[in-house]
């Protein structure tokens, strides 16, 4: 009888990792899922309890194993015996841990996203059986490039819009270099939002910050092309796709855009009124305000606006304008992610994705109902996971 798969998931309490753990535990092949948790014992306990709650599990299933560690530390910060045990049992490593803030220093971004990848690959290299590594990168390693981006493209000379993008490209280079001696594939999600059914997602990052500013009536202008598609994917679909590629269709040496692609994406001109209409349905007070639709304007117009807000010296106005610029600079640079590899390997897998209009609303509602405090946060802003 074949041994059961044993999968290490890093970033198990993150946007991708939380949903991935849930989906892996629901797989018929029933792999063991090892989740690496960072921090002191009390913090790990809290994270563990949070994750079980997030997974809707009253108690920890046998197949779910928590280990103490830190992806940024040598040997993942594992106790020696734990490291040895994992090296003996692991069949897959899904490295989804990353710090996604656009405002990290280069040093922090390197440690969080590049060194961590090296550490994960080092553990994979120690495994007794060749453990396939699925490195969760980002579609935004394309940086400031525009137009159609192919899955095999990786251009280190591109203009990076923030340290997150740069560090994700460097980490992907590390993963690609390792393909010479390890079975590694690279997964590049685009903008991840909540589950299609109920909108649940662990963290409100990236596009959620824009939606929140819409909800608060604090956005009039943002930079971007109205006709640009905005590639958004639901966390549950992403997790199912990763599970399929990990368990049933693992192809080392392949890079995948885990993206919706142009046809299933809404354009900027479509998504703005869509989001506003969902917020208006969800929140009568917002509907009553009848805020004007935020406008996509050319980059030079927004640059002048940003410069003007800087001149005001008004802290809140400056922060708001900078925040919009930073997010839009990353998410709204006009590009289309090609998905040829993904389409081929998901064919017949039963992991379909329809147009965003069909499933996006629950994500907006979920966040608005929580007043934009994500599930990893306490109402007072403190971290739970």
């Amino acid at each position, binding site marked *: 009888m074949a041994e059961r798969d044993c999968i290490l998931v890093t970033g198990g309490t993150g946007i991708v990792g939380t949903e991935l753990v849930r989906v892996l535990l629901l797989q018929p092949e029933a792999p063991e899922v090892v989740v690496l948790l960072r921090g002191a014992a009390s913090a790990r306990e809290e994270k563990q309890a949070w994750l079980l709650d997030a997974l809707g599990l009253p108690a920890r299933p046998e197949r779910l194993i928590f280990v103490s560690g830190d992806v940024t530390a040598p040997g993942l910060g594992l106790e020696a015996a734990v490291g040895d045990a994992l090296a003996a049992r692991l069949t897959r490593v899904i490295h989804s841990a990353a710090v996604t803030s656009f405002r990290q220093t280069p040093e922090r971004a390197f440690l969080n996203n590049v060194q961590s990848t090296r550490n994960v690959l080092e553990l994979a290299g120690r495994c007794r059986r060749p453990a396939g590594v699925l490195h969760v990168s980002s579609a935004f390693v394309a940086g400031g490039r525009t137009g159609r981006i192919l899955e095999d493209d990786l251009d280190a000379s591109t203009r990076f819009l923030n340290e997150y993008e740069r560090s994700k490209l460097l980490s992907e280079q590390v993963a690609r270099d390792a393909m010479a001696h390890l079975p590694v594939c690279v997964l590049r999600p685009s903008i991840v939002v909540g589950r299609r059914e109920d909108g649940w997602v662990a963290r409100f990052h990236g596009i959620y910050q824009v939606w929140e500013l819409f909800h608060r*009536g*604090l*956005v*009039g*202008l943002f930079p971007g092309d109205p006709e640009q598609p905005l590639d958004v994917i639901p966390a549950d679909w992403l997790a199912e796709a990763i599970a399929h590629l990990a368990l049933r269709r693992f192809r080392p040496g392949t890079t995948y855009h885990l993206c919706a692609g142009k046809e299933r994406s809404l354009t900027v001109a479509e998504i703005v009124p869509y989001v506003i209409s969902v917020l208006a349905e969800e929140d009568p007070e917002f509907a*009553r*305000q*009848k*805020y*004007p*639709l*935020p*406008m996509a*304007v*050319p980059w*030079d*117009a927004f640059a*002048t*606006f940003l*410069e*003007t807000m800087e*001149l*005001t*010296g008004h802290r*809140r*106005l400056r922060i*708001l304008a900078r925040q919009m610029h930073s997010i839009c600079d990353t998410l709204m640079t006009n590009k289309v992610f090609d998905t040829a590899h993904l389409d081929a390997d998901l064919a017949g897998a039963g992991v379909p994705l329809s147009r965003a209009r069909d499933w996006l609303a629950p994500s907006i509602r979920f966040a608005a109902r929580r007043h934009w405090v994500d599930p990893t946060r306490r109402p007072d802003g403190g971290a739970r996971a």
Partner: protein
Amino acid sequence: MLEPSTCGLTALGYHLPPEQRSVEDLAHAGLVSSTAERLRKFGHQFCRVAGDTPVEVLAREAVADLQRRSGFDLTKVDLVVYGAGLATSQVVDPGHGYGWMQTTNPSPLLKFPGPKLAASLSLSVPVIGVSQLACNTLQGVMRVARGLLAAEPPLRNILMVVADRLPPQANRELVYTVLSDGACAAVMSRRSERHRLLSCAQVTRGGYWDNEGSRDQLIAHYFPLARQAFEDALAGAGLKAADLKMVIPHNLNLKSWEVLAKVLGVPIEKVFTRNIAAHGHAVAVDNLSNYVDAVSEGALLPGDKVAWFVNGFGAHWSALVMEV
């Protein structure tokens, strides 16, 4: 029945008090919130201050300027529409701690500058007041005048006057813009060969009535609502932005116009921004004073199409299109 496009302005004039104060003066006197350096970066250098001159005298001076420029015979005026952007008797009750609310004598609150102006001009014609439009008052007055001409055939010429003066100790800065005192006057006539009003549009968002409480939203939504009013006015005239010879601004700070011009799709060179530095923002007067200056210096010629734009607390965004 009146064809709206046949009515227009047959006489125009304005008055800004001669006393100029620099942004440095104002900052030194504590009459602005920002530093002088910041206000200069926003394109402001001076404002005009009326001192002790009553607002109705400013109004009278504007009418005198109108007469000097056009020679218009005031005996042909059938009605006066008088507007003021700062209407202390019209504001939402600010509570008992606010000075004029403590008055025990309501009579001063019932003495109006419009009738007084009419009397000083020896005009025995009806006077109608327009308020609550702040900087949009002139465009509101023009809209009312046009409507009256359309509705009441005996009316031929309506004298429109708008005047404002801030209290002497008032802070003269709002939203990085320096405020001036001043007045303007124009006659809207049933038939005019020049300065014909082709269309006008107004967007009001009462949700921003509390301009301090909704400041961030107001700043955020300024540009989209400005574009809405501008495009509505253009559509009403059957024109596109490219058809305009010029955009006549209110003298909000220059930086805001640099952004707005891009949002409207109009080159900033087409926006008559020359007076922002020297005049400051004279509440509801700017559109007309800028228009008069642009015509006087030959920057606008008969047949040219221009758009006026203004935003004011309330909050209102207004635009109109004229044929010079």
